[in-house]
């Protein structure tokens, strides 16, 4: 990790129950990554439901608009990292195997460490 880089950690708390709240975090994360900022998104509460296999291809933040997968790929293509923790998966009856590839499992301690190491934490 580049010690000189600026960092933003996003926290996504809503999931498939609120499609209209699903895409913004990926927009902003991609925009930050385009500024060479190191970006992570931590999915908690209902957030992990967005990472289920099949969801990104199907979910539309705006009816008739691009799928969530489009915005997710845009962010990941720029190096944005996705994090979940076990209790948040349990809350949604999910296992790591139910999620898309490339999601990193962390714990509460690691989350708080990421938050303290980041220049800003932004919650949705």
């Amino acid at each position, binding site marked *: 990790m580049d010690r000189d880089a*600026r960092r933003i950690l996003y926290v996504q708390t809503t999931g498939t129950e609120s499609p209209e709240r699903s895409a913004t975090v990926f*927009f*902003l994360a*991609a*925009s930050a*990554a*385009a*500024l*060479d*900022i190191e970006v992570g998104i931590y999915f908690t509460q209902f957030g992990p439901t967005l990472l289920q296999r099949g969801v990104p291809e199907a979910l539309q933040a705006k009816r008739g608009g691009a799928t969530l997968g489009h915005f997710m790929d*845009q962010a990941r293509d*720029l190096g944005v990292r996705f994090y979940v923790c076990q209790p948040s998966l349990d809350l949604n009856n999910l296992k790591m195997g139910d999620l898309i590839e490339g999601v990193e499992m962390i714990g509460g301690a690691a989350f708080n460490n990421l938050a303290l190491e980041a220049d800003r934490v932004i919650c949705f």
Partner: protein
Amino acid sequence: MTKAEIASTLDCRGLLCPIPIIKLSKAVKGVEVGAVIEMLATDPGSVPDMEAFEKQTGHRVLDRTEANGVFRFLVQRAK
């Protein structure tokens, strides 16, 4: 600045936030340090976004003009 000094042109006319800044970020990484990219955009949000891009990345916006709703930026890769 003459046309000859422009390494490439990035046409983002009609594209909305955050696409222009993402395309610019990739384009800058694809040219030599010191090279200049001409970027065209119609999203009014691209003006403050380019200021943020310059401030956060250190790459320089050498020139900014607007004609008939099209913004034209000249961006120089700094590092």
